[in-house]
């Protein structure tokens, strides 16, 4: 948390940027070559670095104002670490996170606090994300205590009650404790806390995966409704591809610390060109037996390799049925593949594969 003297001008620049409005459709968050490596050390007293877990390893993408960017991937692909780095809960090892054009990945002190007002998070587990010893009013009111300038002291109780109302909870519940609520209601409380500072960006890490099916839809609808109401930009991280498709405007697919394909929801779901995306989509069970008869299922062999020791070249090659020698040598770049370059098909979107090919695996239009 050391803040070198040289960062002072940057700090002011960030604070100025925070106030700057962003047009709808302009990038609000630009991520460039972001890396997060966790060192693996040996030794008790004298720690020697023997390697690193490359949780996020060179990820770039843009998040536009007012849109929802879905990030999908299996466990261990680095999507949760990515969220933590964007939230500045973990320091990036390398790369940049540009928020309205200013790099915030090394921000600290006042600048960091200013950013926190504008980028907030919704957590996965509604049972561990609320402090069991605090009342709902204290939980949702805590942002105001940390940022007193947002709501004057006298207005706070009213502000908290308004937030409860916004997320569909009875404002009378302000003095209750989290254990008196069900999972879905707790998730609403978590969302209200995230909204308190009127942020522009919300990073939601698996916000509905811990909820019952019938309650999931309520929370997803709430998130969509809030986005319209407050003009929020979402980064929606999930492993459930169906939910991501429903809520996202654009989708990025991660595998072993890298973004392998990114595009609009139609491009990714109907014209996936990366073999991993195709396998992932084909594996998703569709709740309609007749709908899946025409679908071909790609069964991947093997498991995800360890992020401490990823394969050379393309990281997916160890499980890929198309892999050739080239894949073990050249790292494929995330760009529009050569075969589609200059074409206006939906298949012409960024995909990190040497042998990209448009295959519709979902089967329905």
């Amino acid at each position, binding site marked *: 948390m050391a803040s070198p003297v040289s960062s002072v001008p940057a700090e002011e620049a960030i604070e100025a940027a925070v106030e700057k409005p962003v047009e709808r459709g302009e990038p609000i968050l630009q991520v460039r070559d972001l890396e997060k490596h966790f060192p693996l050390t040996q030794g008790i007293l004298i720690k020697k670095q023997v390697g690193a877990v490359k949780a996020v390893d060179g990820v770039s993408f843009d998040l536009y104002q007012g849109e929802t960017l879905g990030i999908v991937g299996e466990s261990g692909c680095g999507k949760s670490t990515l969220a933590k780095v964007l*939230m500045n*809960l973990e320091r990036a090892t390398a790369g940049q996170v540009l928020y309205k054009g200013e790099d915030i990945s090394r921000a600290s002190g006042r600048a*960091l*606090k200013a950013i*926190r*007002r504008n980028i*907030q*998070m919704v*957590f*996965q*587990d509604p049972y*561990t*994300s*609320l*402090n*069991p*010893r*605090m*009342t709902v009013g204290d939980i949702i009111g*805590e*942002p105001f205590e*940390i*940022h007193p300038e947002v709501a004057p002291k006298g207005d706070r109780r009213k502000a908290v009650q308004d937030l409860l*109302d916004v997320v*569909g*909870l*009875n404002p*009378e*519940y302000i*003095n*209750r*404790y989290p*254990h*008196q*609520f*069900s*999972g*879905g*209601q707790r998730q609403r409380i*978590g969302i209200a*806390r995230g909204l308190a*500072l009127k942020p522009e960006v919300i990073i939601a890490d698996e916000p509905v995966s*811990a*909820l*019952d099916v019938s*309650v999931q839809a309520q929370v997803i609808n709430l998130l969509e409704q809030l986005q319209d109401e407050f003009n929020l930009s979402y980064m929606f991280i999930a492993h459930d591809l169906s939910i991501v498709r429903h809520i996202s405007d654009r989708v990025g697919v991660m595998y072993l610390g890298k973004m392998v394909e990114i595009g609009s929801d139609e491009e990714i779901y109907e014209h996936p060109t990366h073999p991993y995306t195709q396998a992932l989509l084909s594996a998703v069970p569709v709740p309609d037996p007749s709908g899946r008869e025409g679908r071909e299922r790609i069964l991947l062999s093997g498991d995800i390799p360890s992020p401490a020791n990823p394969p050379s070249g393309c990281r997916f090659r160890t499980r890929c049925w198309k892999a050739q020698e080239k894949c073990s040598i050249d790292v494929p770049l995330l760009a529009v593949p050569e075969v589609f370059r200059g074409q206006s098909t939906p298949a012409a979107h960024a995909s990190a594969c040497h042998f990209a090919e448009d295959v519709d695996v979902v089967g329905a239009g």
Partner: protein
Amino acid sequence: MPDQQPNKPAGVPEDSSTELSSAFPETPTLGAMGAQPLLEKEDLSHTPPQSAEAVSVVDREVARSLWQDAWRELRRNPVFLISGVLIVFLVLVAIWPGLFTSTSPLTCDLSKSQLGPTSGHPFGFDTQGCDVYARTIHGARASITVGVFATAGSALLGTLMGGLAGFFGGWIDAIISRIADIFFGIPILLGGLVFLSVIPSQSIWVVVGFIVVLGWPQIARIARGAVITAKQQDYVTAAQALGASNSRMLLRHIMPNALAPIIVVSTIALGTYISLEATLSYLGVGLKPPTVSWGIDISAAADTFRNAPHMLLFPAGALCITILAFIMLGDAVRDALDPKLR
């Protein structure tokens, strides 16, 4: 989320609610007993026939914190009630021994040496001819004082050290943990014999200080673990994401959630500290006459047990009851605060 009944002792699913749930404001909701969810706002608006009634019922239900729940749990536990009554009595004896006896423990009459119980002197006399009943009553003060202050001291020191180690981790943790290990490694009786025999003062505070010095590592270990567990919870990350300072995270989020195991271990330790004081006094390195203490009296009575068993039985019995009361209290507190440990 899949069914989880088998994993929960109570077998009650977590997600559960109807508008009726709020009609039972007395339902305890501690820990594993499952949430007692409330009406969703939508329900109110979508079910007009019930809404008016439901709202008024909801309002009557009081919000209860986990501490309040634990207190309700305690009050219903007979072990707590029995130990509580005993402890209140013992504390009264310790503070105002004059209420229970008018005889001074230091006025002794050698002519009555080792006499058995007689009228007016229900516990008989010791070798010095002092009234055993009076000495037993007055001895409570030493035991309770040592127990309470040694516990408070080691809990404070242990929580502070363990909390710092757990919160900051890294080299701070390494240093504190190694220091704690060193103190933990000292055999408490050997340490007492060596340490207390070289200190000339025989004040009760020396004994308290000695117990704190050797007792804090036990609390520190628990505190460190509890802080590390609490630190990893999402609500701490959420506070950090809101821009909370270290002190806010530690004091508002981590400490309140790490306190339960510390309280539990401290209450259980209280009983053992009382017995430790008695042991040290018995060995002649703890409290020394003219301080009146059960340990001293037990020590003195041991030699004459065959001739005058009453000299040993009464102070030893008082000591046993006191230790038992505090350990039972610790048990009850653990049941209420930490149902998982059951």
